[in-house]
């Protein structure tokens, strides 16, 4: 900022708002890009998951190529899907949208499966040169931190997750996942980030957010999640943060005094949004194009549902006559749509669903308008059916009670 200082008197009257902004975020930019720093810790004071992932992406792209960075952050409640996953398979969007907790849907840039974050979950992220990277190195670092805080049984498993042996409901000792890992590897830098469940108050409800009603009716390309029993470690966030930063220092830190090292920890906050590249990354990450249209191609079909199907998600309000809705979506857009209520339908209404072609699935906010309710005659009984309502429930649209989206 030195060159512009001389201009300050000139600028002061004209655009007074610009300077303080530039000053505030420039300290973060200077810290992130300082070539003399070979190891540095950043801690976010924001709980915005989109911002935290955007700060992390900035650190991946802009920190010196030979440096190693630790970034620690917690997020407000959100479900985070992997780069190549399908939100309609991984997430109960209807519950997310209509529940008070206001859980956000996030798609991260790294690979892997879906995880839930909240204030009781701390995320660690290590960015290092590709030559230094291996998948377990920094999970092992976190294990050492957990052990130093008394969690002796923590270990890294074959899936690169951190597990802790605990007694299950029957009293048997079993591994419970406390931390999951994902990676983003670029030409110049490697990123490993992981969650760590410390004291989440939401463990019981996590499966409710992750159980998607449409899952049994979708065949998709892309990456599946592997569900594991989870547990809290039961450690305070700040203590965990300190212990991980300490282990990071043992691995990469200079010989400087602990007090000097601690003072070098950089606290980054909402003002990071003013860094143009972070603002750009944030916009991209929050866009529906990224969240929904990055979804690998998939096909939804109700055609193969039979009376004897044990598929649990099939609602009872889905009589045989409705078992003919099919579509394929590529980049989140419909490519082939067909609705065949078959000859048993009492309705004469023709639904021009092929018109959906090229539209985006997530933009269909009310399927009831497209597929109106009608009376269907089954064994001389008239049954009112609403395929639109069912589709809303399967794809998380409409504004019903959260329980309307839960299929047991």
């Amino acid at each position, binding site marked *: 900022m030195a060159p512009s200082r001389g201009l300050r008197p000139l600028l002061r009257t004209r655009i007074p708002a610009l300077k303080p902004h530039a000053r505030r975020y420039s300290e973060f930019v200077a810290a992130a890009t300082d070539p003399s720093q070979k190891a540095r810790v950043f801690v976010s004071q924001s709980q915005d998951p989109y911002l935290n992932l955007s700060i992390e992406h900035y650190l991946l792209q802009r920190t010196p190529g030979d440096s190693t960075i630790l970034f620690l952050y917690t997020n407000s409640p959100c479900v985070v899907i*992997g*780069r*190549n996953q399908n939100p309609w398979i991984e997430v109960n969007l209807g519950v997310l949208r209509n529940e008070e907790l206001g859980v956000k849907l996030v798609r991260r*840039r*790294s*690979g*892997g*499966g879906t995880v839930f974050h909240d204030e009781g979950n701390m995320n660690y992220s290590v960015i290092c040169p*590709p*030559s*230094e*990277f*291996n*998948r377990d190195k920094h999970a092992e670092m976190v294990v050492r931190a957990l052990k130093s805080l008394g969690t002796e049984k923590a270990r890294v498993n074959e899936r*690169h997750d951190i597990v802790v042996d605990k007694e299950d409901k029957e009293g048997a000792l079993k591994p419970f996942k406390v931390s999951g*890992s*994902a*990676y*983003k*590897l*670029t*030409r*110049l*830098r*490697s990123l490993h980030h992981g969650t760590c469940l410390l004291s989440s108050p939401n463990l019981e409800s996590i499966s409710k957010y992750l159980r998607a009603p449409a899952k049994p009716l979708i065949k998709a*390309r*892309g*990456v599946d999640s592997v569900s594991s029993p989870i547990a809290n470690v039961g450690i305070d966030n700040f203590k965990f943060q300190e212990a991980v930063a300490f282990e990071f220092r043992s691995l990469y830190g200079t010989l400087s005094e602990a007090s000097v090292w601690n003072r070098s920890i950089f606290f980054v906050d909402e003002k990071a949004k003013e860094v143009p590249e972070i603002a750009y990354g944030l916009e991209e990450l929050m866009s529906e194009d990224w969240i929904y249209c990055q979804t*690998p*191609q998939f096909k939804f079909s109700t055609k193969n549902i039979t009376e004897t199907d044990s598929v649990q998600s099939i609602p009872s309000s889905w009589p045989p006559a409705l078992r003919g809705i099919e579509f394929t979506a590529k980049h989140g857009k419909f490519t082939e749509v067909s609705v065949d209520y078959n000859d048993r339908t009492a309705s004469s209404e023709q639904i021009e669903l092929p018109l959906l072609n090229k539209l985006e699935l997530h933009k269909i906010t009310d399927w009831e308008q497209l597929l109106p309710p009608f009376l269907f005659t089954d064994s001389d009984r008239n049954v009112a059916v609403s395929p639109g309502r069912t589709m809303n429930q399967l794809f998380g649209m409409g504004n019903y009670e959260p329980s309307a989206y839960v299929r047991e």
Partner: protein
Amino acid sequence: MASIVRSLRPVASRFAASSSRTARSWPISQFQARTFSASSAAQAKKYTKDHEWIELSEDKKTGYIGISEYAAHALGDVVYVELPTIPMEVAAGDSIGAVESVKSASDINSPISGTIVAVNDLLEERPGTINKGPEDESSAGGWVAKVEVSDAGIKDLDGLMDAAAYKEFTEEE
């Protein structure tokens, strides 16, 4: 791809020792044979330090791009390949897609400048194809994209390695 290979090598070798699915030993002979027996109409393959390859057509106007045998082996089982939307103008080193394996999203970068004019759709449907024949540019192969070479692209080729130099490079890594 550089990051993947350098970083995953220890992991890859561990996999090779323990998992029957990925237990293929590093196919050196196959790798050499394939490199030098490429159809006579095509130019010899060139490699980047990031472990991508490019093979130009005889008229040097187009070329196939893919990731090297070495990279594919180090990646482990590929579960998804993200391909670019065509046409796409690229400079050497630009990301033209990504592969996912073992929870990792890894960029694929263009070895040279030009315009990506075709992609290997087979990889979207069967991502494992990239493990089976990463340097195979046939219709059933694991090539990633086809590029229309620009003038700058011709110059970019000078900075790439031939098969022998690349082999030496991977042995040093």
